[in-house]
């Protein structure tokens, strides 16, 4: 559980909903539900990409897993700086979201080291991992997230968070199982980042839903939707290129 500040935000935000017409004649869903629906095909395009499906179904070679972790290291490395860039651009109208980002950054602090630990477990030294040049897809992903936080809308960072947490909490567990089975890894060794985030991000997902349901500004909502689409797209390209 998070700090008292976060609990206060949770309590003050619980159950907020917007109203209005929806194509099915039902009440307008809260923004989280709207986001899930509007980006569902992007999520499914990631989930059903042949490379990912094969990895989840049959596991991966050690070479491919190393390649994934090397890209992931850079994705994770940029996570907090992107959140910081977004937080620094959120004025007091968005104070609650700024505080949420602070909390999230605190929780994610140092998680890139978990990726380095996993890389060591599969035979890549920390030095080699740090020296690895990220792929163009990874650079594009990071570049978009900085640009969106700066130029589109700082709430775009919530779209990045959503994608990372969906990937971790929905697909992380099965993928970690597949990696363990195919590479004969014991327990969390080699899969500590993916495996532990599959569990950690369950609570994060519920918290993020509450935060997203407070984003009632149309421009900010559009920016989050775009960010989710772009992040799923680039993640899919990263996986595809492995």
């Amino acid at each position, binding site marked *: 559980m998070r700090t008292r500040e976060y609990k206060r935000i949770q309590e003050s935000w619980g159950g907020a909903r917007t109203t209005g017409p929806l194509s099915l004649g039902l009440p307008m*869903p*809260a923004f989280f539900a709207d986001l899930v629906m509007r980006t569902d095909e992007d999520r*499914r395009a990631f*989930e059903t990409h042949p490379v990912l499906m*094969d990895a989840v179904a*049959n596991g991966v070679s050690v070479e491919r897993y190393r390649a994934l972790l090397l890209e992931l290291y850079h994705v994770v490395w940029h996570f907090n700086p992107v959140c910081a860039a977004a937080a620094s651009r959120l004025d007091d109208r968005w104070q609650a979201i700024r505080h949420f980002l602070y909390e999230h950054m605190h929780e994610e602090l140092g998680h890139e080291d978990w990726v380095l630990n996993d890389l060591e477990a599969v035979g890549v030294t920390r030095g080699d991992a740090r020296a690895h040049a990220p792929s163009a897809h990874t650079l594009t992903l990071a570049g978009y997230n900085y640009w969106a936080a700066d130029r589109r809308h700082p709430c775009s960072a919530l779209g990045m968070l959503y994608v990372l947490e969906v990937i971790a*909490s929905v697909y992380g567990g099965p993928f970690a199982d597949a990696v363990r089975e195919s590479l004969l890894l014991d327990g969390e060794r080699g899969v500590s980042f993916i495996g532990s985030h599959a569990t950690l991000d*369950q609570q994060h997902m519920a918290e993020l839903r509450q935060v997203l349901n407070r984003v009632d500004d149309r421009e900010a909502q559009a920016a989050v939707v775009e960010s989710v689409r772009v992040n799923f797209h680039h993640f899919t390209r990263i996986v595809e290129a492995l």
Partner: protein
Amino acid sequence: MEPPPAVGVAGLLGRPYKTLRLEWSSELRLLRARLAVKPIQCFSLSVMAEMRQVTDDITANPGLVRHLVMTSDVPGVFNFGGDLALFVLLVRAGDVESLKLYARRCVDLVWWLENAANLGIHTTVLAQGDTLGGGLECVMPFHKVIFERSAQAGFPEVLFNLFPGMGAWDFTIRKAGLAVANEMILSGRLYTAEELHYRRLVDVVVDDGQGEAAIEKVVQEVDPRLRGTLAALRAQRLAVPIRHETLMHIVDLWAETALGLTDRDLRLMERLARAQARKAGGGDEGAVEEIKRLELESAWGDRRTGFDRRATGGSDRRARG
């Protein structure tokens, strides 16, 4: 903004669907809908929206469609049912409203099928492969249900502490009685086409590869006496009604139950999702085999339901491999 209703056959067929393939036979005024959610054939939000569009278009053109036929375009799978990854996402997010919204969309389709005779439409479905959970719920309101012999079906939800919430109880009870509904829903086990035929949930079982001919036969038989058949089916539904209100109450209970799933339950759901991915990738084993493993692991089946299969007839046998 909702798109305007389609006008005529050209309008009906002219929409750019991604997960459906529509075909039109003008002689019989038969609309064929092929489900094509690839690579994992399930009821994604996208196909639900497209199915909704098709049914809205049919409703907006009274008298245009006389026969609706549904089949699958994915070999070996009619439908895996709900989008498991979406369920996991919504459950982990604690989003009961979205779970209800998704389930209501499914019930909307089931309810439209239930009332198709009132629109002058006879409905036929052909299952040529795995038909699980929501896939089987979708099949049951059709007027004529055809299974190819190798198709298997069931409601596995109880294996991960859920239940089928989009019409399974009402439609199974109406077609096969409460004892069969109890047996099927509470055991979570899978049934062969023959077993489902024996329980009156499937009307016609044909050998593999004969499904298309069976559709043709059904439609050719019904068409000359369509008005009488539809009137009889309307009367049948008055005699044994299914209430929309009950379906909606069950949907709410389903969503609230889903929200209470534990990490262990969700991991079992993820096992099924992995199995679906294996089958979609060309593997020999898929969700059906995984469900059989879960059945064996949990060893619930008959002990839970108290149902003695041997008392129901000699042709009945367990689907376990």
